[in-house]
């Protein structure tokens, strides 16, 4: 356990350093753009990790909430001509409020019903983005200003997004070990047991849903100030499914999982660009194979190899595994 943590923290420091140095290695705005997108997805997916990995509820509305954040920002910053920072704050707060309202509905169900209910919310949001007058229909909203003055160096936004991402990960790391986090993971592994030891189920579940929506909102803000433009396409049901896949393929409930999953989510399609037509076929097949052969995701696979190497007390590490997973 101790060595894993140490090695894990070393690894993360190395990754952070690498990420910070990337603009020095490549001045290509294409690759910088891919990394910015990755960081944004990491924020969104860490949010999903809270509700999915900790609380154990399969939310399929994360992509839609990501869109809500982006749209509120775009509308405030262009149509209402607000200051970019206040637009961002309103978007994040608005997302939280919407999630709070949705939480009244979604937590009346659980299991597959919860997934299907959040999926239909995603569908509704998508239809609204397409059809409302204020969201600009299929064309969306363009001409959103940047977060920083255009005279500033281009790397500013890169480092800003990187910093927000690190804060998001740090928050989830803190949450894991907090009272709320233990409560949520308790709900995830056995909600009746959690209730019997005094975890207020409804309040905690709502808190986790709202937190995940706030992360989606932050992601939406970062996204719209990066592209300067919103349209319904990136926030449809497929986006919510992509979030789910990223978290699960990476390893849900772990800190590193959503990071790895998001990297795959952005870079795999970019690399498969030459095989554009086959991209989704390969993607679908890969998802099935990954879930069938490494159900705990990439992080689970890493742990499996580590355990096989170390072996001394398999039973004990096994128990530890479960408590770590949830």
């Amino acid at each position, binding site marked *: 356990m101790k060595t894993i943590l140490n090695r894990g923290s070393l690894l993360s420091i190395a990754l952070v350093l690498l990420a910070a140095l990337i603009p020095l290695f490549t001045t290509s705005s294409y690759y910088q753009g891919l990394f910015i997108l990755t960081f944004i997805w990491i924020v969104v997916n860490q949010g999903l990790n809270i509700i999915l990995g900790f609380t154990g509820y399969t939310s399929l509305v994360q992509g839609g909430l990501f869109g809500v954040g982006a749209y509120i920002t775009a509308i405030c910053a262009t149509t209402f001509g607000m200051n970019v920072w206040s637009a961002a704050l309103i978007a994040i707060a608005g997302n939280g409020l919407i999630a709070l309202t949705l939480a*009244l509905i979604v937590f009346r169900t659980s299991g597959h019903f919860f997934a299907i209910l959040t999926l239909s919310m995603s569908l509704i949001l998508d239809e609204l983005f397409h059809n409302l007058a204020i969201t600009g229909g299929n064309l969306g909203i363009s001409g959103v200003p940047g977060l920083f003055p255009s005279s500033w160096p281009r790397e500013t936004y890169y480092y800003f997004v990187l910093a927000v991402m690190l804060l998001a990960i740090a928050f989830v790391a803190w949450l894991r070990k907090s009272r709320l986090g233990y409560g949520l993971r308790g709900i995830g592994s056995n909600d009746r047991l959690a209730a019997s030891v005094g975890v207020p189920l409804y309040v905690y579940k709502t808190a986790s849903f709202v937190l995940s929506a706030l992360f989606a909102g932050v992601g939406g803000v970062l996204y719209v100030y990066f592209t300067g433009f919103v349209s319904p396409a990136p926030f449809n049901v497929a986006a919510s499914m992509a979030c789910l896949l990223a978290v*699960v393929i990476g390893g849900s409930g772990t800190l590193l999982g959503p990071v790895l999953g998001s990297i795959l989510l952005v870079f795999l399609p970019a690399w498969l660009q030459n095989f554009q037509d086959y991209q989704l076929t390969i993607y*679908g097949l890969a*998802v*099935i194979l990954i879930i*069938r052969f490494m*159900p705990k995701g990439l992080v689970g696979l890493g742990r499996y190899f580590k355990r096989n190497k170390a072996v001394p007390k398999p039973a004990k590490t096994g128990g530890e595994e479960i408590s770590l997973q949830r």
Partner: protein
Amino acid sequence: MNELLQQLANGLVMSSLYLLLALGLSLVFGVLHIPHFAFGSVAVLGGYFGLVFINRMGFPIWISILLAIAISTAAGILLERLPYKNANELPPLNIFIISLGLMTFLNNTMQLIFGPDQFQVKLDAGGMIKLGPVMLTELRLILILTAISITVATAVILKKSKLGTAIRAVAENREAALLMGISIKGISAFVFGFASAVGALVGILYGGLYSLVPTRGNDLIFFGFAALVLAGMGNLMGTIISCLIIGIFQSLTIGYISSHYSTVAVFVMIILVLVFKPMGLFAKEVRR
């Protein structure tokens, strides 16, 4: 008044499509506990099989439909044996994701093979039939009758036959059913094969009524699941009523408000229902 009746009749047509889908879905979910999200795509695939036989190869319609159903059945059994293998031993989330992956895979593979264009299956049943004040094409009437007869047949099989009893036993308690000498493998294969056959029929009829596009399965599956969620799982009568509600509600929204909001309206209605009846309108047992 006549317009209202016509809208109700149109609603009935949609309800029939959703009913057939919901029937397949609820069998798969009820017996094997698999949320078969790829089912809409399987239906569209069946439709494409029909399209190939009827439009491209020019086989007689009945033979084509039978062939398409046979291939779909085989494909369904294959799905149960490969991606969904031992699904009951996996965590629910993983089965869910497998079905999403399968849906992506099937949709895109169909797109690769058939292209993104729309095709209509030439079912040659476009004649108008006048029923009192309501006009329906022959095909629409056939769809409604097919839905009714398949539903009745399924209900009879489930309630009266030995096979139906075995299926219900597996749904109720897998281990006990196994101990009674019921072949779980056989039942699973039957359920998947049967559902896929019904799916193929849906695909062909849908392709004849409207048109086939590779991604059409997504819309179909959402409404199929919407009907199940509205009804509460595992209640045949409730599912029928839910399909009627959804189809008619949708056609009224299209007729009197806007076709843009027909999907939103249906899902908002379902969410409202779930707020007051979280287990669905017709759920029998009240779980915690």
